[in-house]
């Protein structure tokens, strides 16, 4: 076996161990690699920023524990912006684990302490609603017909924020952050196409190529692209958190992966050339 062939047959354990090392180094000692704010994140920020004080935002927590490390920081940074702008927030979950993420997010944002807002008046959590697009259509079509109590079991008639909210006409902005393709496309279909509402969406980076056409056609006014989008949001809202820390790890490990791809290609063609010479 030639040196080139040995290089192409590098055991995956070695590759993974090197990637692991590349993740541990910036975790222990942050490198402070430069962060270029993306246009899509800036558009999300500007869309929310343009909302007048008191506007009602419908927000969907469309992820669970698996998505939290990537999307939790983006949600936290977004909530900081919503509360700083004095927007009213109606939070729901289209993913079953979303209701478990809600307390984690609120624990990090601390809206009562940091912004002096009141549950029920400035924000409310209506919990997980099954059915994905059916749930979206229901909430936008006739919210009181679908939701009779909030997540804590309080009837919506006793919640000041929900008293006058009937459906899509009462929402000024629809925002969501999700790991699900059905949820991310669903909000575009149900909120933008059906009601022409302003929609901003956040999702995993691997979903961005699928969702980018909706952003290009103006159906999504802003996009938070995975950890990168979350880091952008933390920077823009001036609330640095886990995403900015993670972006170093991401940049460092992905650079290593790119180097591996280059080495792999060189080795592949090198081995091919060596074989041709032998024959």
């Amino acid at each position, binding site marked *: 076996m030639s040196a080139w062939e040995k290089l192409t047959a590098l055991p995956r354990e070695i590759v*993974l161990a090197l990637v692991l090392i590349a993740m541990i180094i910036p975790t222990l000692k942050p490198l402070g690699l430069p962060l270029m704010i993306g246009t899509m994140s800036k558009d999300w920020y500007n869309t929310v920023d343009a909302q007048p004080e008191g506007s009602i935002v419908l927000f969907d927590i469309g992820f669970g524990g698996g998505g939290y490390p990537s999307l939790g920081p983006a949600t936290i940074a977004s909530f900081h912006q919503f509360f700083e702008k004095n927007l009213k927030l109606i939070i729901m979950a289209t993913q079953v684990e979303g209701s478990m993420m809600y307390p984690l997010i609120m624990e990090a944002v601390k809206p009562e302490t940091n912004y002096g807002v009141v549950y029920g008046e400035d924000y409310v959590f209506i*919990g*997980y609603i099954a059915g994905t697009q059916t749930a979206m259509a229901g909430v936008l079509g006739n919210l009181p017909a679908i*939701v009779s109590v909030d997540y804590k079991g309080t009837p919506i008639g006793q919640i000041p924020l929900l008293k006058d909210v009937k459906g899509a006409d009462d929402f000024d902005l629809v925002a969501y952050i999700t790991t699900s393709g059905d949820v991310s496309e669903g909000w575009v279909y149900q909120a933008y*196409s059906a009601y022409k509402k302003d929609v901003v969406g956040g999702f995993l980076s691997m979903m961005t190529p699928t969702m980018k056409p909706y952003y290009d*056609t103006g159906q999504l006014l802003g996009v938070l692209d995975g950890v990168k989008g979350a880091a952008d949001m933390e920077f823009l809202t001036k609330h640095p958190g886990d995403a900015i820390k993670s972006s170093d790890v991401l940049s460092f490990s992905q650079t290593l992966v790119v180097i591996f791809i280059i080495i792999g290609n060189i080795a592949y063609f090198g081995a091919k050339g060596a074989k041709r010479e032998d024959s």
Partner: protein
Amino acid sequence: MVSSDLAVWIAAFYTIAATSYAFRDNIVFKFSENTLIGAAAGHLIVMGIKNIRDFGWSHIMQGEIIYFIVFILGIMLYFRFHREYYWLYRYPIAFLVGNGVGISTRAAIHSDFILQVDETAAPWTAATGMDTLDNILIFIGCITALSYFIFTFE
């Protein structure tokens, strides 16, 4: 700084345990997998009951008796396990499928077809050189992908 929060340590343990599968299947990975399945199943059951209570039963309690139909359809789903009356489960399934398809299709045509065609057929020239290049690449990508799927036969 080392965290004193137990939750952080539990999360760190399960992260490493789950990632260890990248090397090979092992007992620590299996432990994390089984814990996740157990916790997720437990949570699903609780949320299922909560959904029935909050979005079904609470309406009936407020006098909206039409919600009994939802309960009947839900119970009919379980006839799947009955040897003689298993066919009854088809009615709620038909309702779910019809409802789902109807709701998503009404907007998908606009979002996925009309607006995408409109954007792809836009003029190539844009404000910046890179945007112009983007438009040309999108056009070429669209034509080549369509040609592949339309003209490729087995």
